[in-house]
């Protein structure tokens, strides 16, 4: 049975990587075909009917009708708009398909190992990226963030590609320190928070791009406003999405760190021992607290706050990659 499941899991992970890659190509086509399109609120129509009416007040992160004010605007043909949009829809459908296969891959990996699939770098990578993919699909439904499609699929392809090619390890046992249900609580909270942090970071990147575009356009109103970036929501809207995602992730991360501390108390007899992994979890926490502060501090809103968020994400990734690979300490069980 173990062999069968392990085999299934490997095939699913390869397939998911390929499907995400196709989704990414579709989004590339979406961007490319929008090269000559004027900024317009097409994306506003994408709010799915699934959003309950009561959520509508919270949800409209779609571009509100934004008059295309740039010079030389001409009406784009519906056909040209539809062509770009169609590839966007294909990209999203493929991402959802990829998510399903990805989920199957993680589940069968867990069945093969007869435990939660969180025992090695490879398993952390496939589970963590699953959280990213799921967070994206949920948020597309809630906040219509399909404009993040290219960045998200690009991220997923990179992480899964590295996981499958570089990090892969056959199914192995868990070391005794990991035999604890706190592992399940701690890691699932951390993974979900990580998925949201990733979406938040990608949204912050897009915010910075779009914001730069808007600043430039304000200085040169005569330039045409064409291309995919002009078809995303205004920078302030993207910033708001980024904030909400971060605001969701931060308490969850706080909880994940707390669960880790309680588990450490059971396993090693101390809540907090400044082990490298703990240090970086703390640094990430402080960095995101600084992000939330920056958003409320005069002179730090906007771009500066977005950079702080990206800094927080960098510390999060470093904890996963840097400390697991080069670090020592009690947490060095990641089977690299």
């Amino acid at each position, binding site marked *: 049975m173990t062999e069968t499941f392990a085999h299934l899991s490997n095939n699913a992970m390869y397939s998911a990587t390929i499907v995400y890659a196709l989704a990414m190509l579709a989004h590339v086509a979406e961007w490319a075909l929008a090269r000559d399109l004027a900024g317009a609120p097409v994306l506003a129509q994408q709010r799915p009917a699934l959003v309950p*009416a*009561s959520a*509508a*007040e*919270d949800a*409209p*992160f779609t571009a*509100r009708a934004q008059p295309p004010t740039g010079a030389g605007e001409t009406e784009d043909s519906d056909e040209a708009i539809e062509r770009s949009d169609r590839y966007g829809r294909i990209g999203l459908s493929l991402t959802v398909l990829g998510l399903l296969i990805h989920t199957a891959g993680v589940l069968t990996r867990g069945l093969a190992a007869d435990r939660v699939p969180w025992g090695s770098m490879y398993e952390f990578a496939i589970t963590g990226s699953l959280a990213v993919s799921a967070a994206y699909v949920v948020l597309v439904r809630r906040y219509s963030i399909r404009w993040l499609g290219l960045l998200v699929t690009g991220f997923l392809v990179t992480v899964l590609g590295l996981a499958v090619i570089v990090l892969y*390890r*056959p*199914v*192995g*046992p868990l*070391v*005794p*320190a990991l*035999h604890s249900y*706190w592992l399940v609580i701690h890691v699932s909270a951390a993974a979900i928070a990580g998925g949201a942090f990733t979406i938040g970071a990608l949204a912050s990147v897009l915010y910075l791009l779009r914001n730069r575009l808007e600043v430039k356009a304000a200085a040169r109103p005569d330039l045409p406003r064409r291309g995919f970036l002009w078809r995303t929501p205004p920078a302030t809207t993207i910033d*708001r999405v980024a*904030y909400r995602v971060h*605001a969701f992730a*931060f*308490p969850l991360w*706080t*909880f994940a760190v*707390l669960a880790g*501390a*309680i588990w450490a108390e*059971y*396993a*090693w*007899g*101390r*809540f*907090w*021992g*400044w*082990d*490298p992994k703990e*240090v970086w979890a703390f*640094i990430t926490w*402080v960095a995101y*607290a*600084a992000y*939330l*502060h*920056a*958003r*409320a*501090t*005069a*002179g*730090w*809103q906007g771009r500066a706050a977005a950079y702080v968020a990206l800094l927080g994400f960098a*510390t999060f990734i470093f904890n996963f990659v840097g*400390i697991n690979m080069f*670090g*020592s*300490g009690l947490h060095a069980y990641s*089977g690299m």
Partner: protein
Amino acid sequence: MSRSSDTEAAPRAPAGEPERSTTAPALRPTEFLRWTWRQLTSMRTALILLFLLAVAAIPGSLIPQTRVDPSAVFAFKDRHPQLTPLFERIGMFEVYSSVWFSAIYLLLMLSLVGCIIPRLRVYVKAFGARPPHAPRNLARLSAYESWATDESPRQVAERARVLLTRQRRRVDVHDSDGSAVVSAEKGYLREAGNLLFHLAVLVVLVGVALTGLYGFKGKAAVISGDGFSNTLIQYDDFTPGARFNPSDLAPFTFTVDDFHVKWKRNGAGAGTPLTFDADLSVTDRPGDPVHPYHLQVNHPLVVDGTSVFLIGHGYAPKVTVRDGDGKVAFSGPVIFLPQDGSFVSYGVVKAPDAAPQQLGFEGYFFPTASLCGGAPCSTFPDADNPVLSLIGYRGDLGLDGPQSVYVLDKDKLKPFTTPGGRPRALLLREGERVSLGKGQGTISFDGYDRFVQLSISRQPGKIVPLVGVLAAIVGLLGSLFVRPRRTWVRAITVDGRTVVEVAALDRVTGGDPAAHVDVVAAALRTQGHDTSEDRKDGRQ
């Protein structure tokens, strides 16, 4: 935003001349103190201190820390003799208790207190406050809509009141001739959540400090079959809090009756320990009955608030040392500390009673010995082919002063050498005995025991930081998900018709007041009494 700009403006308020006050020679001491305090408790300082704290935490994750891994610190000092004095002086091996790290977090705490107290005062004063009156010019707000209708101002106001009340807002109606204004506000819990969060952070910091102050942490290695009694001398490593009193040690004892470890033998992950656990016989207090305890990873033994954790294990090879006279100078198991996952273990054997000279040995234990590229190594962590590789010394062990059992002081020792004059490696399989040289004595490797590595600690009041973190999370949820918003609906009769204005103002960023105004306006525009929520999408 709103609050932050208040906070930012604060330091400038007293002097009124921010530029000059920075240079400060004219300030009287009290003014200077007040200025400093305002700076310290400003939002920007808090932000900078948070950054500093994050940066200051980094070196401790890259440079080995005495509290985390003392042997790694020794190794580091060995490798970097030039850096060591500097690092020692600036506390690089104890970053998290160093002066500079403490300074940053004490400043942050001070800033936190200075930040919370005034806000707490404002919050208490404003408790139960009514929604503020509408600004004179609603159209100036960015979230604004206006239209004309045939309903009377009073009718519009009444419908607005019902609608806004149903949305769980505090609502006031001001009604006068020909005009009616509805003011609504919600999100009072946000500030409460935010205050709770920051207070809870304080509780956590203070709680952790107190727990450390009155508690202790220690490590002990106990050989399977041996006993442990909870007294200072039985610890290999003991870190008391500043207020800890050794007589507070709970007087329990236990023996390690048996120890089991199971390894994954083949397939992926071979050599990983699957489980390890120990059977203990515990006596809580002298005279109490003995009870058994099955000690496992993640399942500590708790006696009178002191917890005993199983954190590791290793080998204790049994050796017998005979001196030149053939007398047994030492016999028994000796703890060898595992160096890595293959359980190659390092240890020291001391035979102070040997005559004519004291004897000492230092070397490695290989549980499954093999040759890897010419050097001895262990290919599996279980003891399939145990081999002991030692170098022997004679002379003075230097035992007059205190000395670690894991270190051989070689200052006054001379190694046994090969005819070529190099230190001679003594290779012993289980059951073998080798001679150190004619009339010098022998050493034999009689077998091995296993030992358990225990971490023993007491953290009185550890519930305080726990409750603190939970309160922090609750506060955070309130602080991040409650979005205070003020809404105004004004209806005025103009030329026989009623002009209705709706406007909203958020007190924090991240919300979308315009969408809210859309919803309210859409509901009020529809004639009749249909103000229910499902009309919200009317604007689309």
